[in-house]
């Protein structure tokens, strides 16, 4: 299941709703991404005041659904969820949530990491960081491409 939304989310409620009534689940993994206060994430001097996430309505939902389907093909999952926010966020805000649930932990662990790696290089989102010095678009990282490439 995937959702793209402006609104915040509650990780506990999301996990409860996703797994309710499914007693075959033996393990649940989650990853939540939040807004850092450092521009570029590497200790630059200018503190981020806002981060605005732009996306491609239509393609975003399609891409996330494809990524979710791919994870369910590769691993034996009882349930999976991707929630991604867009719009203007501030440091500390939640951006993205991935939850995977399976009978045994290995599937949940691996699928959770796969979903994050793939969505970072395939889902059409772009981050604009604003600080006192102005606004700049976050550049894609080669390490993210490498992280995607290792899931052959």
């Amino acid at each position, binding site marked *: 299941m995937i959702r793209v939304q402006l609104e915040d989310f509650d990780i506990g409620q999301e996990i409860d709703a996703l797994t309710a009534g499914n007693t075959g689940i033996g393990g649940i993994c989650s990853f939540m991404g939040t807004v850092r206060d450092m521009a570029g994430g590497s200790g630059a001097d200018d503190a981020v005041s806002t981060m605005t996430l732009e996306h491609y309505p239509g393609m975003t939902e399609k891409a996330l659904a494809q990524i979710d389907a791919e994870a369910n093909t590769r691993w034996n999952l009882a349930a999976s969820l991707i929630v*991604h926010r867009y719009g203007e966020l501030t440091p500390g805000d939640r951006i993205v949530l991935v939850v995977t649930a399976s009978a045994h932990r290995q599937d949940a662990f691996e699928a959770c990491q796969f979903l994050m790696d793939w969505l970072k290089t395939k889902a059409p989102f*772009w981050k604009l960081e604003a600080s006192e010095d102005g606004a700049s678009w976050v550049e894609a990282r080669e390490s993210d491409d490498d992280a995607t490439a290792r899931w052959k």
Partner: protein
Amino acid sequence: MKILYFAWVREKTGIASEEISLPDGIGTATQLMDWLSVRGDGFADAFANTDTVRVAINQEHASLDHPVTDSDEVAFFPPVTGG
């Protein structure tokens, strides 16, 4: 053809989307970028370095040499940075 621009590509072209009639002789995404580039400084700037531009055709990631037709929805944008 519907064309969409995102992030700094949108800022440079100055528009988020437009409808055009695909001119004769434009058969790939690269050829479309070259044609768009000569429409004005903003477009030229947006497509100055095609290594940094990605394309989606009908909402699927595509290579720059992918064919385009007049009924396609084509989007140009920088490498994605979500998550």
